């Protein structure tokens, strides 16, 4: 990878992907919890989630918890791979710069 994955490279999306990556496979995080971790507004977070969903990196589920609407998301298989590739890309840059 000579160029960073521009979808993941954006700082808010990078935080979203990092937060999702540590969840056990299949485990989902609620929108409100993710917002607390990433520390952005609802609208901003929603827009970035939309971009990640369109690129196939995250899977979004909307349902009801009792009577309350709930949005949850997790990394997709391709998202997990893209994130691993992005981290490798960063590590390669650092390694290449060392004498």
């Amino acid at each position, binding site marked *: 990878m000579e160029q960073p994955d521009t979808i993941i490279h954006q700082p808010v999306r*990078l935080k979203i992907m*990092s*937060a999702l990556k*540590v969840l056990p496979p299949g485990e989902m995080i609620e929108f409100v919890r993710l917002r607390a971790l990433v520390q952005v507004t609802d609208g901003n977070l929603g827009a970035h989630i939309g971009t990640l969903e369109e690129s196939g990196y995250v899977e979004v589920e909307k349902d009801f918890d009792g009577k309350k609407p709930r949005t949850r998301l997790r990394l997709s298989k391709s998202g997990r791979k893209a994130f691993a590739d992005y981290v490798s890309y960063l590590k390669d840059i*650092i390694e290449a710069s060392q004498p």
Partner: protein
Amino acid sequence: MALSPDQAQEALRDIAATERRSFEAYGYKAAAPFLILWGLIWIAGYAVSDFAPLLSGKVWLALAVIGSLGSFIIGGRQKGGGKTVRFDWRIAFTWLTGIVFFTALFAIMAPVDGRQMGAIFPLFIGTSYVVLGIWIGMRFVLAGLLIAALTLIGFYYVDQHFALWMAVLGGGTLTATGLWLRSA
């Protein structure tokens, strides 16, 4: 758009920081319902031990069964994303490990009275939370230290109503910690 080594370092630092916070928050959320359940069980069990000591053996046994079943259900629901209940054998083996440990411990050095019995389990739980917290997050460390400290203070300085002390402060701390973790 190639990145400089400094930008790459900064991105890796951001990733590590967010991963740590997410892992911590996940651990808190997963543990919260167990702490609330067992906090309520401590409140009930120790209250009975204080007000009706003759009943305490049977009541604690019943509460342990209720707590175990409740823990299995909570664990199963968490594995099923809150929808389906599935049996998680790791919970069963965690219980089995605890039972074997205490059976062996009591075989070697059995508590001589109810007061010691009432102190040893909270001390073990408090220590376990401190250890867990070292790996997951500070809130577990603080809760563990508080539970262990309250147990020792009660054991050495509360004469007549140690069980009531443990009901209110031990069980109360466990329940309050569960609510605190849930809000993390």
